[in-house]
């Protein structure tokens, strides 16, 4: 009446092979990519940043972005935490109490200002997640976006661990993802990124990533009292081209330190590696299961035939009785069988006999076969002459 335990377990193990095996199969379908060696980056020395927002203004200008709600010299916006948003590639946030008249930059009493923008990951989550490859990691280091193919699924925004890409939700027809480009168009022209050029305190330094890392290490080594010993972006999520130095733990500065060092593509490579396994194994397994059940049905049909032959000799006595039985409500037969898992052989044969006789006697009389069997001994009419033909099950047997 229901799935036998053995069948269920077989089924589950078949499912398990498909779903679990590939977990160990690594990056079968993902490109193993660990960044361009000579790529460029920016080092943001938070200790030097004075929160003047000139980088924001420069970014807005060089990228020809829409005018902001509040002017860039309005420092009151620092009172709340902001993030990149549609048409705003970068924001500066303040951490700690606002400065008082006597607190000067670098005095240790001042708050910290942190510039936020795309970190241009070595192995970007956004690029790995995009199903139209709208993001490209350029050899120069920038991660750039191509609005011409973007569908607007916003999976890149789900994927980015730094919560950078923003979406033009208010644009009904041509909405785009917006994010910092590291000023890639300027870089290829030999210019500095707009924000770097505008920074009055050299809190932003543009250079080769390797050189920036060396510079950052030197600074930490020279001023261990001013810097924490951590270059943010060296390893986070597999490393980024935008790097940070700070005077206090990064988790106090809105930069998560619990991201780990595993790059985004590696997080999904196991699941992607599963695809060829499922595609390869499932059809084989399922065809096997199908063939097994088919054979079981065939054996059942043969058993039925044998039972019919054996019963024929005794048919004369039982024919009348059998006819009455067959005419009885189908539901009665169903009730009788309900829940019965392993039927006694004798009972099965008796049922088969009565069914077969009923068929012989009143062919095509009963549309549904109550004793439709599976796993139990009752054979059913998979013999071609069966009356329980349904629109889709018989032809494939032919």
């Amino acid at each position, binding site marked *: 009446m229901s*799935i036998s335990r053995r069948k*269920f377990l077989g089924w*589950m193990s078949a*499912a398990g092979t*498909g*779903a679990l095996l590939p977990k160990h199969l690594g990056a079968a*379908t993902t490109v193993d990519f660990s960044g361009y060696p000579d790529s460029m980056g920016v080092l943001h020395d938070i200790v030097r940043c004075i929160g003047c927002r000139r980088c924001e203004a420069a970014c807005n200008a060089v990228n020809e972005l829409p005018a902001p709600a509040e002017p860039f010299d309005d420092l009151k916006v620092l009172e709340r935490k902001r*993030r990149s948003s*549609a048409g705003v590639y970068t924001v500066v946030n303040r951490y700690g109490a606002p400065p008082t008249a006597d607190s000067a930059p670098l005095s240790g009493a001042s708050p910290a200002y942190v510039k936020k923008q795309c970190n241009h990951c070595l192995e970007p989550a956004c*690029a*790995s*997640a*995009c*199903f*139209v490859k709208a993001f490209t990691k350029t050899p120069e280091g920038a991660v750039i976006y191509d609005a011409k*193919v973007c*569908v*607007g*699924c*916003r*999976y890149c925004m*789900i*994927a980015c661990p730094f*919560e950078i890409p923003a*979406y*033009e*939700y*208010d644009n*009904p*027809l041509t*909405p*785009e993802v917006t994010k910092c480009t590291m000023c890639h168009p300027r870089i290829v022209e030999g210019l500095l990124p707009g924000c770097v050029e505008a920074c009055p305190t050299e809190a932003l330094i543009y250079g080769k990533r390797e050189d920036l890392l060396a510079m950052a290490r030197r600074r930490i080594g020279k001023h261990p009292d001013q810097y924490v010993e951590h270059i943010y972006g060296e390893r986070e999520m597999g490393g980024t081209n935008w790097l940070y130095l700070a005077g206090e733990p990064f988790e106090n500065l809105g930069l*998560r330190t*619990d991201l*780990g060092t595993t790059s985004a593509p590696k*997080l*999904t490579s*196991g699941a*992607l590696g*599963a695809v060829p396994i*499922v*595609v390869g194994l*499932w059809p084989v397994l*399922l065809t096997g299961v*199908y063939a097994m*059940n088919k054979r*079981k*049905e065939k054996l059942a049909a043969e058993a039925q035939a044998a039972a019919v032959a054996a019963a024929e000799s005794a048919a004369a006595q039982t024919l009348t009785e059998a006819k009455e039985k067959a005419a009885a409500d*189908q539901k009665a037969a169903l009730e009788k069988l*309900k829940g019965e898992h392993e039927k006694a052989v004798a009972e099965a044969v008796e049922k088969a006999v009565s069914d077969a006789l009923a068929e012989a006697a009143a062919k095509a009389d009963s*549309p549904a076969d*109550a004793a*439709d069997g599976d796993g139990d001994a009752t054979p059913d009419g998979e013999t071609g002459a069966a009356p329980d033909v*349904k*629109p*889709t*099950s*018989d*032809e*494939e047997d032919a």
Partner: protein
Amino acid sequence: MSEMVHPEDNKRFSRFNIVAGAIVVMGLILTVLRFTKGLGPVSNLSDYNPWGIWIGFDLLVGVALAAGGYVTSAAVYLFGMKRYHAAVRPAILTGFLGYALVVLALHYDVGRPWRLPYPFIVQPGTTSLLFEVGACVALYLTVLFIEFSPAPMEWLGLKKARAIVVKLTILLTIFGVVLSTLHQSSLGALFLIAPSKLHPLWYSSYLPVYFFITSVIAGLSMVIFESTLSHQYFAHKMDAEHLAEKDTLPLGFGKAAAFVLAGYFMIKVVGIAADNNWHYLATGYGAWFLVELLGFVALPAFLYAVGVREKNVRLIRWTAGLTVLGVVVNRFNVSMVAFNYHLPAADRYFPSWMEIGISVFIVTIGIIAYRFIVTRMPILYAHPDYDAH
């Protein structure tokens, strides 16, 4: 049989027509708003919360609950459970409608829906799990359409075409199971890329496995659930085979669901142990996690088992409802409740009434289409011309 109209059904359906009509009108207005004003004005989606209920409900729940199609056809055609044959057509129909509505809902959600084919015709992003989801859903929708096509063909009298399709049954079923395994699990794998955003109790490298297994659970339970509703509202459309299934189907599918739920419960516990997440259970999220695990996994597993043992079909039907609700809760948790758990409350997502309105609208379209089809095509009964063979 198909021509009979029951008077009390007429009354009931006219009430249905009024409610459905109102929802459709609202849906059409919201549709116009969505495509003229953009996503912003109709939704509460934000830069922190790019996915809302159109993904969490319409995509994730929709695909999971439409799993009845592949689960039933695999059980009947591949695993030899022929006695549930009558359940295949309604399950394939709801599967097909479910997937069609998922694709429809995506047109509301993505920014430029007319570009939805781009990943396949312009530039495939094969490193993306979403690409896998998209490819499999597109292919599977086609498979479901072909699997479903014999019904309209019988209705329209296209005997030759029908004969060809019916010959493909086994092939289509295997293809459907492969595609379903892939995309059901990939929907869970979508979140693998964001370990820092999804609460550790829900984030697990087993996410794809969890999603696949829950899709089987959802499929089994939905078939029971739907058959309950069909027996209530469309009994006059049914032939003897369907009517006879009224009690046998819940028993068989309920038993299977009890086993799968029990297995799922165990691997969920293994998942917590593997990541050593026990200490999170003492937090608020932990309490909610336990509600999901105990109330919507362990409890239905137990109730199914009791229902099957005592042949209590009523209990099984109610349990099916509870289980379906549990799958909804799970998908909501992964995509919304436990997603962005690290953000302050002000940056969290709650759907706007218009987002909910569009989701309701889409579900309503599905019910209308289902009703249209089962009252005309041979879904709940075998077509007389194809019956005796």
